[in-house]
């Protein structure tokens, strides 16, 4: 396998070599003790030879876009390039991209290439500063193509203005894959003195490929938004299925707290339509259970929906496709209005928070407008107004908080969850940095659910590495495995990424580090509960 053996530049996206980089564990940034010793993490593997025939392994050997879209001949390559340029032109029009035209053009136009943003990127840093993961690398490729093909200056003055770039199939495969080496956490944007948003450029690259060519990871599109709209949930959960699970959750609640709670489903006229990430029903049913206990005990008027789409808060469109985003957001709002609720409240799911509350704020109008809000302020009100009796001593174990980027940096819901933890978790400690300057869990922008081929290996070894480092540092005074430790991650996708991270580094077995949501901790602290709600087992 031929790999580029010199420093990589943006124009190398077009290089004919098989792969631009090959990662090894030794290249990666070191982890804190006890993971600073050799053998504490698995070696990285090569892509299977047969994958290279159909899939784009040309960037780093990893495959995010699990579609066989590699051109087989010159004709297919030319078609791909033409299609890409068509898409790029649409991305620059009001009709095609009113949704992000101004932010995109500002970011294409004004980057000073000062690289101030690079060190803000956890993936770039933890990869051992691999050039292809630098926020500016993929952005610069798109910027050069845009300059060269879409601006008068680029057409007249060529390379002098646009910089060196050749547009071939390799360039496009690497560009598309590299857009899936960025979690869209937008930490880079926070540091830019001009306000240029290289994270947005990743988003727009993804969108171009999806909206023009139908090229997107299956987990996001085919099994994600399409399945969500067709079947009811990106998990494949059907309306009947969710009703069954809700019954199971009611049984489970009864077992745990000795009291049966009737979870309201499709109750017209309730104050709140609570929408969970459907992954919670399947992987962490204790989370919707905890919500049900808290809302019932606090006397809140609420309901779940069993209607297709509305029992799953996720909206994967937010990561790669504006139309799919709009379809799902509209459906959520439409069903909530049909139920005549006063508002939608999003459960513990970060991207669903941002999608319906913030991004879709300029999608919903007239009949499909409805108020939407985060569950965090409501949960804090339950604690603040003492609607339930809590005993913090029940949570007397080390707890740290992971800030989901979508909920915190991208929509400013920062304090309610911390206020709850300060009140109910005596050993709460912050990760550093935290709040709006947090690091992504590594599962952002769809990575947590992209389980195809070798992508999970890259996610665990590179994308979640910074989060794992932060977790180890947050618990450095209590790494002793006899002490159970809790990462509070109030987001389903973050939990998914953290679950896989703990499994990859065997951190639950080795160090007794576990994870869960916020509501589980709240219920665990309820005075009325005889048995602990938090179960110290890895799942």
């Amino acid at each position, binding site marked *: 396998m031929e790999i580029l053996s010199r420093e990589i530049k943006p124009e190398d996206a077009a290089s004919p070599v098989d792969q631009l980089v090959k990662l090894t564990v030794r290249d990666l940034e070191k982890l804190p003790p006890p993971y600073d010793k050799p053998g504490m993490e698995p070696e990285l593997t090569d892509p299977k030879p047969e994958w290279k025939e159909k899939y784009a392994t040309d960037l780093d050997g990893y495959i995010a876009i699990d579609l066989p879209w590699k051109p087989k001949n010159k004709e297919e390559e030319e078609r791909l390039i033409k299609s890409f340029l068509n*898409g790029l032109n649409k991305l620059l029009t009001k009709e095609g991209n009113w949704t992000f035209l*101004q932010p995109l053009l500002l970011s294409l136009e004004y980057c000073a290439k000062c*690289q101030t943003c690079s060190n803000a990127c956890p993936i770039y840093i933890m990869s051992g500063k691999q050039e292809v993961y630098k926020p500016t690398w993929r952005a610069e490729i798109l910027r050069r193509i845009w300059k060269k093909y879409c601006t008068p200056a680029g057409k007249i003055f060529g390379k002098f203005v646009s910089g060196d770039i050749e547009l071939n199939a390799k360039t496009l495969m690497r560009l598309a894959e590299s857009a899936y080496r960025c979690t869209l956490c937008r930490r880079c944007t926070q540091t830019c003195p001009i306000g240029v948003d290289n994270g947005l450029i990743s988003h727009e690259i993804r969108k171009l490929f999806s909206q023009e060519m139908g090229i997107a990871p299956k987990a996001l599109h085919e099994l994600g938004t399409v399945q969500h709209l067709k079947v009811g949930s990106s998990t494949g959960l059907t309306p009947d299925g969710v009703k069954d699970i809700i019954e199971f959750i009611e049984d489970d609640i009864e077992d745990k707290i000795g009291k049966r709670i009737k979870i309201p489903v499709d109750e017209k006229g309730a104050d709140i339509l609570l929408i969970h990430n459907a992954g919670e029903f399947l992987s962490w049913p204790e989370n919707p259970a905890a919500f049900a206990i808290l809302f019932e005990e606090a006397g809140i008027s609420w309901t779940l929906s069993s209607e297709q789409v509305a029992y799953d808060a996720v909206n994967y469109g937010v990561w790669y496709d504006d139309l799919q985003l709009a379809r799902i957001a509209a459906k959520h709002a439409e069903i909530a209005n049909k139920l005549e609720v006063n508002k939608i409240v999003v459960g513990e799911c970060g991207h669903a928070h941002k999608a319906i509350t913030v991004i879709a704020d*300029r999608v919903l109008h007239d009949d499909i407008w409805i108020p939407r809000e985060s569950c965090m*302020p409501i949960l804090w009100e339950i604690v603040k107004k003492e609607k339930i009796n809590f005993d913090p001593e029940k949570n007397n174990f080390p707890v740290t908080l992971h800030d989901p980027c979508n909920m915190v940096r991208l929509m400013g819901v920062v304090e309610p969850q911390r206020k709850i933890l300060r009140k109910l978790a005596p050993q709460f400690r912050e990760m550093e940095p935290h*709040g709006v300057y947090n690091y992504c869990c590594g599962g952002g922008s769809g990575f947590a659910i992209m389980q195809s081929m070798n992508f999970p290996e890259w996610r665990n070894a590179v994308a979640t590495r910074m989060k794992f480092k932060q977790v180890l540092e947050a618990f450095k005074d209590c790494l002793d495995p006899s002490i159970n430790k809790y990462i509070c991650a109030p987001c389903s996708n973050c939990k998914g990424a953290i679950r896989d991270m703990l499994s990859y580094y065997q951190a639950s077995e080795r160090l007794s580090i576990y994870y869960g949501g916020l509501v589980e901790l709240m219920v665990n602290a309820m005075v009325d509960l005889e048995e602990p709600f938090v179960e110290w087992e890895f799942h």
Partner: protein
Amino acid sequence: MPISALMALSYAAFAIFVIVVASKWVKWSSMPMHLRWELYPVPHEAGRNQYGGSYIEEVDYWKKPRETTLAGELKDMFSEMLFIKRVYEYKRPLWWLTYPFHAGIYLILAWFFLLFVHGILSVYISIPVLAKVVYYLIQICGTIGIIAATLGCIGLIIRRFSDKDMLNYTAGVEIFNLFFILIVLLTGIATWITYDPNFQHAMEFMKALVAFNSAYLPKLTTIAEVHVILLCLLWIYIPFTKMSHFIGKYFTFHKVLWDDELNVPGSKVEAKVRELTRLPMPWSAPHVDTGKSWDENALENPKDEWGRWKY
């Protein structure tokens, strides 16, 4: 006396600069409203900007009056404009070069303004005390400005060539821009040292411009003439390039990263959303109904042969 060629060039440079900057401003201002894409901390969030919180931290936030702080926004804006705060915080070694460069340019702009005021005071209104103050300010701003900007510019050029992280991403035009500025600054220094140590001739030049009368023009040396010509060309050139990022920066922060305006029924935002979602979708992927509007695509829910949503 009629105006001279250099005066005409100066007027033209200024006019072109203003017109192109204004047209760029109009271009960015008239772009369609985009989806919300704010990034926290948003400095106008009263009481929450310190930690990056938003009004969404409140239950029923859409019913409550917004509490914003102009002071918070101005503080962030000026600390970025005047001190380049983000580079200071996140890339200190570069700040030591870029800050003198930018601060020097600000001082040179202040110097131009003071020359203009001095010209007005010389031609139209006589306030000797103020003229004296302005005279000394011209000495201070001009001297510090040109030295700081030149040192910063040289530093930025050296850094651009020595730092591969920057060089590998730099197009020829960006190098050209830096050298263009440097040449203007160096000819300015040469003029200052050899011909106009007290900026007396610069003041006379501006007086001629303000009076539209070439009788006030000083006799320029060749280097001074070259400097004025290059400076005028730079004024004309800047707004066409990304050196005009002072325009973009307003929009990136105020209209994108800090734009958290809420859409509520009956609002202007809602009217814009209604208008924009009527636009036809040009995209070609299989899940798009090309040519149908965004609303039709999002709301009509095309069904497949099993009666299930197709997309």
